[in-house]
């Protein structure tokens, strides 16, 4: 039955009283001798428990009171307690053997709130009363019970009375298969004891009907009680009807673990002076304290604490003023300043203790050096597993005394098992062998065998592990294996007794750790650098579509430096908040249009990090993540816009040339627009291309714009379309299947539909593009059929080899720099393939479309040139289609493309000119770009010259006369080598495309990428794309 369990499972008023009942009524006599010893323990612990409560209750009164106050109310209480306690114990006086101790304890823990005790006593008296009758009724039954008890415990008693128990005999006591088993039964949380007592009661009431042997509730085990019984069915039977037991889950405790259930961890605390302890209760609960004196007889310790005293409240109290009690408020720990106290008119006395030490006594509390010296019960402190943090230790050390080894060494009392490993360097810190260094050879239970460093000593010495400390030297590379800094690695720079100062590998910061928490690690790790798929320094996409670089890996979380230029923004994200790793290799352009790719060293020339320099680690959406090892923050990462950087060693001139070209572009301030124009064009007539190739860049600061996405949520779920614009968290998507643009939440789209982006050009302003939208929209639906069957497969298949070919011959040594993406006409000029061409060319078409086609299977440039012209506007795919006779010289006749490409057809009506814009785009499929009489820039072999196109040759090349007026030498140039000179305002122009192709006019204004043209013939004013306008010679 329940005694066994109760007795081992430490006390509580309730148990106690129940047991009392048991003993009184049933087998007190037998039990007496049986349990003499146990009883004592129980009682004293009972009292201690009580003491704890007392302390707790007493708290706000004042802690000093219990130690130094002798008067008034408390003593009354004490008396009361004495009375009540003795009352209580009277009931089982016969069991009591140690009244004195009890008295003493009572004195220490003088206060027991009357309301706490009285009901219990009532209970005590009450229960037997109503329980008695049945028992009295049948005395035989009682005797039977007594007999059965005797039977059951008889052999135990024998065993206990053995003078000396040997190990073997102990073994014999262990449960075997024949013994009743232990079952674990689930019960309501917090009702464990109650449940056990209920079972006890049930047993009392029902007697032998209940076939369980005992019920045990353990303090440390919530939600479960143990029941000892032979069969599960017995347990079930016993539990039937108990309201605290629900769920019929009954688990058998394996025999092997049965002893563990009831084994009590020895509470013998080895408290010595200078041990660090923590307060368990009261105002100082959780506070670190240092033991200054131990009174083992009285079970009390004097500890040193940092006081938490509200001086004002104290002053009020001492002066007898009303003290407003605020339970929630715990004053912060602060050293006591005697002068401050005096200012508040608190009386400070000087006292000496038994050892003659001087203390300041304030209102019964003792202070020294600002610390509070407080005497408390051993029970109210915990000495197990104390791990003081550095801050705490630092505070304790503050007033003078320096780092004392002894106090730190006491920390080691709580080391884990297996703390020392073979090969560890150690030093002896205590005893005769102090300061002996050595290496661990073997670890026994408590002793560590070390191989001493000094010769002439025995090969190994056995040293108690408490006398040993791990030993490190500056320069050792170590890893922190426990404590707050767990996982970090670093090199030891300084050893201060038991404290090491490390230089962290990852952060290059100082870390202070205990030598105990550290192991030497030859492995060079940088701490935990990886959780899941994500590693330190990875670029990751976060939930809300923002992105950043992982700059620190903590347990369970990452610190991410977000891709927000100008100001570093660090967020802590959980693993699940990371969407994916971004591993795209993209390149962008710096301020001077030099291409930046990963690993290029760039210098920041703008913003708060100006002057910093380092290799580019990641590029995404026009943002660079630069790793500067001298940058101490954010693990050396700097997030910056590509535009505010310059490639170290990159040329300025490169950009200048482009700049010139743009300058000519009617003096636009914003050069980036130009490269965009051809793209826009190609988007008009070349949808797949823009969907794929230019996705992610080219238009707008957001990589999403232009991407082909799929809507995955909302009313448009399942639709595919292209992103037209990003507006905050919304995107405007032009649906492919319906002629409309819809606004969708950004989170509701997936953009993996599109081909990988290759270009990241944040610099292209979005503004320039906006005017295009209205006109573009109606075009797209028509293009869709064309794209799907033809373009897309071709692109995917064709582009890659084409690219390879494009760069291989020119840039053999640096494949990383992809010329094809380069967008830099200069590099093209150098290509031998351009040689046959003749002067004039247009910079803006050279890089992108021209380059691509240069290496199509179509063959040489003369052929490629022509299809390009048409395809750029109308039906891009056709020249790539294997069926299309790419090699055939094509004349600038749009009609020839129409049959092959239905896409061209619908667009043609556009020329009718429904609005101002459409003629331009609709008419794209008319004719080639360049026409006679226009002024062009020719770049070939790196040089650049101006010329006038004289004639269009049938093979697609042009005859160009050099010189701005066309009177220089004449040469033949390929279209890719030429670009039309961009007209400025009030230049005479020739229209190279659209319905008005061939007409001349005057540019009377420029609006973004559109030119306002007054056509000579009709004197109409038209708005045309600048790209199709060329300056007339």
């Amino acid at each position, binding site marked *: 039955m329940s005694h066994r369990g109760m007795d081992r499972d430490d006390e509580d008023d309730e148990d106690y009283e129940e047991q009392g009942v048991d003993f009184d009524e049933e087998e007190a006599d037998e039990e007496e001798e049986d349990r003499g010893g146990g009883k004592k323990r129980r009682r004293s612990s009972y009292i201690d428990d009580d003491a704890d409560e007392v302390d707790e209750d007493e708290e706000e009164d004042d802690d000093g009171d219990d130690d130094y106050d002798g008067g008034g109310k408390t003593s009354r209480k004490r008396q009361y307690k004495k009375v009540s306690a003795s009352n209580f114990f009277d009931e089982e006086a016969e069991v009591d053997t140690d009244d004195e101790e009890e008295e003493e304890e009572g004195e220490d823990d003088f206060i027991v709130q009357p309301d706490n005790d009285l009901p219990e006593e009532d209970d005590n008296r009450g229960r037997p009363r109503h329980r008695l009758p049945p028992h009295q009724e049948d005395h035989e039954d009682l005797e039977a019970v007594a007999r059965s008890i005797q039977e059951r415990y008889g052999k135990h008693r024998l065993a206990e009375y053995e003078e000396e128990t040997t190990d073997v005999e102990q073994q014999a006591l262990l449960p075997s298969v024949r013994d009743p088993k232990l079952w674990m039964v689930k019960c309501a949380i917090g009702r464990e004891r109650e449940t056990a007592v209920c079972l006890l009661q049930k047993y009392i009431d029902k007697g032998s009907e209940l076939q369980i042997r005992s019920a045990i509730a353990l303090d440390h085990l919530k939600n479960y009680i143990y029941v000892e019984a032979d069969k599960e069915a017995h347990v079930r039977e016993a539990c039937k009807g108990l309201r605290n037991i629900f769920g019929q889950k009954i688990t058998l405790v394996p025999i092997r673990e049965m002893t563990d259930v009831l084994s009590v961890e020895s509470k013998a605390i080895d408290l010595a002076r200078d041990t660090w302890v923590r307060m368990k209760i009261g105002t100082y609960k959780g506070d670190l304290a240092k033991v200054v004196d131990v009174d083992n007889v009285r079970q009390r310790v004097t500890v040193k604490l940092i006081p938490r005293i509200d001086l004002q409240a104290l002053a009020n109290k001492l002066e007898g003023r009303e003290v407003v009690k605020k339970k929630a408020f715990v004053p912060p720990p602060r050293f006591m300043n005697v002068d401050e106290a005096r200012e508040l008119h608190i009386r400070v006395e000087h006292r000496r203790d038994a050892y003659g030490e001087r203390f300041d006594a304030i209102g019964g509390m003792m202070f020294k050096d600002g610390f509070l010296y407080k005497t408390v019960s051993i029970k109210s402190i915990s000495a197990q597993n104390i791990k003081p943090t550095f801050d705490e230790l630092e505070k304790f050390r503050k007033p003078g005394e320096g780092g004392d080894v002894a106090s730190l060494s006491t920390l080691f009392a709580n080391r884990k098992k297996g703390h020392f490993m073979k090969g560890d360097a150690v030093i002896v810190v205590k005893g005769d062998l102090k300061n002996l260094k050595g290496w661990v050879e073997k670890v026994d239970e408590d002793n560590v065998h070390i191989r001493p460093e000094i010769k002439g000593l025995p090969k190994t010495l056995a040293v108690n592990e408490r006398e040993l400390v791990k030993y490190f030297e500056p*320069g*050792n*590379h170590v890893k922190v294996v426990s404590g707050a800094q767990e996982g970090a690695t670093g*090199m030891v720079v300084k050893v201060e007794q038991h404290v090491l*100062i490390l*230089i962290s*590998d990852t952060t290059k910061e100082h870390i202070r750790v205990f030598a105990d928490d550290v192991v030497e690690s030859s492995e060079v790790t940088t701490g935990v650098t990886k959780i899941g798929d994500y590693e330190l320094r990875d670029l990751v996409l976060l939930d809300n579509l923002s992105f950043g670089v992982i700059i620190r890996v903590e347990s369970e979380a990452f610190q991410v430096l977000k891709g927000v230029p100008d100001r570093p923004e660090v967020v802590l994200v959980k693993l699940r908040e990371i969407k994916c790793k971004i591993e795209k290799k993209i390149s962008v352009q710096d301020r001077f249009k030099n291409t930046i790719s990963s690993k290029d060293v760039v210098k920041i020339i703008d913003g708060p990090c100006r002057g910093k320099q380092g290799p580019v680690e990641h590029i995404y959406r026009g943002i660079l993540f630069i790793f500067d090892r*001298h940058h101490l923050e954010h693990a050396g990462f700097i997030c910056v816009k590509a535009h505010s950087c310059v490639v170290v060693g990159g040329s300025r001139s490169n950009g200048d040339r482009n700049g010139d070209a743009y300058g000519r572009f009617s003096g636009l301030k914003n050069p980036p627009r130009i490269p965009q124009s051809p793209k826009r064009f190609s988007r008009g007539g070349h949808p797949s291309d823009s969907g794929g190739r230019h996705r992610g860049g080219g238009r707008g600061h957001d990589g999403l714009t232009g991407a082909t996405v799929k809507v995955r949520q909302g009313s448009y779920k399942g639709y595919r379309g292209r992103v037209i614009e990003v507006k905050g968290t919304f995107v405007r998507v032009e649906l492919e299947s319906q002629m409309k643009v819809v606004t969708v939440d950004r989170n509701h789209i997936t953009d993996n539909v599109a081909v990988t982006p290759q270009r990241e050009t944040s610099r292209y302003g979005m503004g320039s593009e906006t005017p295009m939208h209205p006109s573009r929209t109606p075009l797209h639906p028509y293009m869709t059929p064309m794209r799907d069957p033809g373009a897309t497969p071709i692109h995917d298949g064709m582009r890659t080899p084409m690219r390879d070919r494009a760069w291989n011959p020119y840039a053999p*040594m640096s494949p990383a720099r992809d010329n094809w993406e380069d967008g830099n006409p200069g590099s093209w000029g150098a290509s031998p393939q351009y040689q046959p061409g003749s002067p004039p060319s247009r910079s803006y078409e050279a890089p992108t479309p021209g380059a691509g086609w240069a290496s199509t299977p179509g063959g040489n440039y003369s052929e490629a040139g022509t299809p390009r012209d048409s395809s750029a506007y109308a039906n891009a795919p056709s020249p790539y289609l294997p069926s299309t006779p790419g090699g055939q010289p094509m004349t600038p006749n749009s009609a020839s493309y129409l049959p092959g490409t239905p896409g061209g057809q619908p667009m043609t009506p556009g020329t009718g000119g429904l609005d101002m814009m459409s003629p331009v785009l609709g008419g794209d499929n008319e004719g080639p770009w360049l026409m006679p009489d226009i002024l062009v820039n020719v770049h070939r072999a790196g040089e650049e010259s101006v010329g006038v196109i004289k004639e269009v040759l049938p093979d697609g090349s042009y005859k160009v006369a050099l010189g701005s007026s066309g009177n220089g030498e004449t040469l033949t140039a390929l279209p890719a080598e030429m670009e039309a000179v961009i007209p400025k305002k009030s230049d005479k122009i020739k229209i190279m495309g659209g319905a008005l192709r061939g007409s001349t006019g005057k540019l009377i204004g420029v609006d973004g990428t559109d030119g306002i043209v007054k056509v000579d013939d009709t004197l109409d004013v038209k708005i045309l794309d600048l790209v199709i306008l060329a300056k007339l010679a």
Partner: protein
Amino acid sequence: MFFHIVLERNMQLHPRYFGRNLRENLVSKLMKDVEGTCSGRHGFVVAVTGIENIGKGIIRDGTGFVTFPVKYQCVVFRPFKGEILEAVVTMVNKMGFFAEAGPVQIFVSNHLIPDDMEFQSGDMPNYTTSDGSVKIQKDSEVRLKIIGTRVDATEIFCIGTIKDDFLGVINDPTTV
């Protein structure tokens, strides 16, 4: 410490380099690939000084690349624990200072700076003795002792000390 050693490496060469200048191409690629790299065993490869032997190339299936085993002599630089080095201070902060000896970065913690030197923050952070006679700041040259090294795949990082006899500033740019 510098060493002149012979190392071996398998070089992959693209077929486009095959021809008369194959050897030159191979050597230039070797230099490009190898110089400035760092290995834990040998330290930094400072310069390739000569080619001992180029073995027979093996053509890789599929790619057409050819792998040549190349034995080359090179000068390597590897810092050792206990070695005394002269280095140039590159950065000073309150935790100490960073110095560079060629490709090697060395950190000298403020715990390893003599106690009489105090950190002075400001425009030009520095460590100065109380009498102001010795100053460590950016571009100062210091002699230091390496007390620990950490070798990564791409760099060697050292911890140094100047808290020892005959260590410290050897050349102060401000006084010159």
